[in-house]
């Protein structure tokens, strides 16, 4: 986490607050407002506000939008709408039946208390390189649906993640749904973190013979299970050097494919 002003900063900076009641209203706001951020679960955004590392002029709180929290079956996979909480996905029978890989992954996200508010779509839109759900979307070959006043479009996982916390979602677009194909067997998600619930130092997602890595590149990346570290140039931080990350990628891939 980047340094703030060395303390004394824990209250959000001033912003204009908007709480639209419909998706259309939310999209209108995003189209007309300069420098707006969407607030869904808040588990990633609010800490940034508290530290004043994010200083949006406008907050568009979509939690009042009705009917945007469904988890439903679509095209043989599972669609997770924007306000479906991670905890709901964790508890969903549909997810357990159709996409147990997603169920397993969501259990690795932080702690239950965070998952009670955090959303799957929010995690994907936030695109932290060390988070699990973007990698699962990539490994499964899913897509997201982005809506704006200009219409709606699907963005495939492979086109979605551009860089560290950067996605193809435009500033006037609202991520309304993430779609995960049914998870094939065998599947696995294996990560190594310092403490229970922490961001992963490195992680791998296996969906049959597809492999996606997280925590080792600016975005989740697809990799070759036979040589998962090939072409990787992971960064180093306090808990993992680039070499250690490469080492973990090999170790975790071996574990994921051992079954």
């Amino acid at each position: 986490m980047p340094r703030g002003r060395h303390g004394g900063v824990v209250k959000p900076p001033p912003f204009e607050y908007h709480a639209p009641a419909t998706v259309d209203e939310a999209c209108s706001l995003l189209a007309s407002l300069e420098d707006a951020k969407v607030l869904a679960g808040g588990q990633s955004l609010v800490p940034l506000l508290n530290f004043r590392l994010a200083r949006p002029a406008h907050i568009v709180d979509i939690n009042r939008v009705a009917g945007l929290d469904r988890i439903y079956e679509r095209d043989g996979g599972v669609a997770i709408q924007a306000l479906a909480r991670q905890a709901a996905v964790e508890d969903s029978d549909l997810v357990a039946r159709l996409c147990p890989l997603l169920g397993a992954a969501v259990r690795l996200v932080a702690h239950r208390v965070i998952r009670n508010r955090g959303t799957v779509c929010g995690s994907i839109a936030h695109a932290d390189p060390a988070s699990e759900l973007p990698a699962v979307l990539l490994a499964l070959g899913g897509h997201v649906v982005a809506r704006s006043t200009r219409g709606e479009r699907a963005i495939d996982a492979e086109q979605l993640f551009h860089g560290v916390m950067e996605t193809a979602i435009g500033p006037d677009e609202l991520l309304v749904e993430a779609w995960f194909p049914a998870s094939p067997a065998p599947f696995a998600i294996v990560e190594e973190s310092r403490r229970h619930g922490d961001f992963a130092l490195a992680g791998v997602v296996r969906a049959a013979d597809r492999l996606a890595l997280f925590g080792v590149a600016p975005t989740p990346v697809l990799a070759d299970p036979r040589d998962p570290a090939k072409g990787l140039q992971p960064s180093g931080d306090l808990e993992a050097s680039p070499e250690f990350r490469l080492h973990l990628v090999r170790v975790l891939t071996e574990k994921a494919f051992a079954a």
Partner: protein
Amino acid sequence: MTTRWFGERVPRVEDDRLLRGHGRFTDDIDDGALESVLVRSPFAHARILSIDVTAARAMPGVVAVYTAADLPFGQTDLPILIPHPRLTHGRTQRCLASEVVRYVGEAVVFVVAESRSVAEDAAEVVQVDYEQLPVVITPESAARAEHLVHDDVPGNVAAEMIQEAGAVEASLASAPRRKRLHFRFERGAGSPMEARAVWARWSTAEHKLTVYDSTQSPTSIRGGLAVLFGLPESNVEVIAPDVGGGFGPKIMLFYPDELLVPFAAMKLGRPVKWTEDRQEHFTAVNQERGQVHEVEVGFDEEGKVLALDVDFIHDAGAYTPYGIILPIITAAQVPGPYRVPNYRVRFRDVYTNATPTSPYRGAGRPHACFVMERTLDAIAAELGLERAEVRRRNLIQPDEFPYEVGVGWQDGNMVVYDSGNYPALLQKALTNLGTRPSGDHVGMGLGMYVEGTGVGPYEGAHVQVLVSGKVVAATGIPSQGQAHATVWAQIVADQLGVDVADVEVTGGDTRRFPWGVGTFASRGAVTAGNAMAVAAGMVAEKARHIAADHLEVDPADLELVGGKVQVKGSPDRGMPLAAIAVLANPVRYAFGGGTEAATQFTARPRPGPQLHEGEQPGLEATGYYSPPGSTWAAGCHAAYVRVDPQTFRLEILKYVVIHDCGRVINPLVVEGQIEGGVAQGIGGAFYERLAYDDEGQLRNASFMEFLMPYATEIPAIEIDHIETPSPLNPLGVKGAGEAGVIPVGAVLASAIEEALGIPITEMPLSPLKLFELSRPS
């Protein structure tokens, strides 16, 4: 007196209030207070060229903005809390820096506003112009003195001290075997769950300053504020309300806010409060643990230590407000429970451009323990002996007490162990540890320690029986979770023959008890506990005398049981304590509560003045206990661990503790202290690190990156104990607060070394560190 409560697992009287959410922590107090924020240096070393607060002052909602120039005490250096003749170049900071800043987090400007949000908004527009200066961060680079932290401190050395017991040079030279070792410890932090907070109000009408402070020594803060503001001490009240963990960082005194908040309250005529935030806490609050050791040991073929030469550098940080207590403790504690016939220790306390250091649980002892334990492990490895056997051969035996080590202690006395049974600790630990689990990459670790506890100068207590029969007691020292209210109540209840539930204890409130030192260094039970026993004993004595007069018996024939003073063996011949409390205060005017019994026309036992010479009214007493010297607790920890050879993840398979803190007042409380201490030890050994970069920036100042262990990282711990009572105090108790943390690093290092087959000579560790250590270089 009864012994009904001493030694019992009495559930805590504090719990109900805290569990209902009715605790009162300093930030809980608002009372219309203005809120404040400190603007701190973002640089580790810089000259301040200018400070511009005009924009901040002009912001709506801002009430005042202070720089050093605005403070009457702006050019006064904060005190050196514990001066020492060897601290030849002690330096302290000023409340607000105006010339040079020497660590990230040093306070520069104080902003007071109607709300915290506004104070933060204003703080953002304070303009400070800095000219950066070269930085020294590691103790090694500080000792090389490429750059100076203080221009007038040559070599960055605040203090140097050499002590020798025996003749080390000669005995090293003649030793059959010699070995050199190097150990390195990085900084760590206490990090209590409640960050610091201060609230103050000045009452012009009463000419009184009231301060709530999340501190471990309200009496010291009160003394300092009285001196600073030129007030009589009786006009300054300092209260530590509920405190959410101390662990040492809150015994550092006169943090700038502790002066600024009362000052602003007095100046502005409104209450003012300040609450630290977590990120700020990391660099604003004192740290500890940074040391580098060079060791040479001489030993024989039996593994007996003949000579030990230790030369270490202690990382003081940018200033030395706490003097050289930490390196003194390390120097004194290296020999531990072992016979070291020739011991020399030299330390240099060096300045670095980082947060100042002062005690954090263990306070120099974890380093000392690590050095000795790893040295013995190295001896064992070289001679092919069992690690436990080498220890056995070097342990001080039970018939050797009192045992003089030959070096000085943190209270100005020499180190003299008063009682203990070290071989029994080791034996029991090994027995409880049991057989090694099967599997690969499993290692065993072992660590023994002694702990000097119960330092003086003194503590005091006031105990009073009210006319209702309820007992109130007070002492100067505050609790931060150690269950003082329960434990002191047990002591008092035993002396007075009442129920623990009938004793209400107040600590850390100068309005209730104005004298005392503080809660630190595992001293509470020894000092305040014994003071409670003294005061309660005096009350019991007085009660017997008053009852003896009225019952016409000899005081020696009376006992205190069940809330009464009665003739021994004749429960029907007695008086309730409540009645004695009434009689203890002869009155003119009855005011209910049974006080008619003490008025002029009631029957009197003897003629003459109703208060005899030297007698005081009331069934109350104030007593003090001043220890002759520290009393020495000890213990042994042992563990089995497994290290995953691929991920280098640590799994603690079994962890056993055998401790000896003398007589135990409340085993529930002691076990809790040990479990908490071990958890901090595990955290400090494998998870927590203060990651300073070369520019002196702390790279992990948040709970996301400073990795305090959750429950999933801490295994169950098995605790057993022996008791070697202290001969030095009437209760026979020794301190226990820090015991859990002291040997953990040594134990885990030893176990990991065995599990992975790589030498471990530093703390802390991590999977990354183990990965790097295990690569061929």
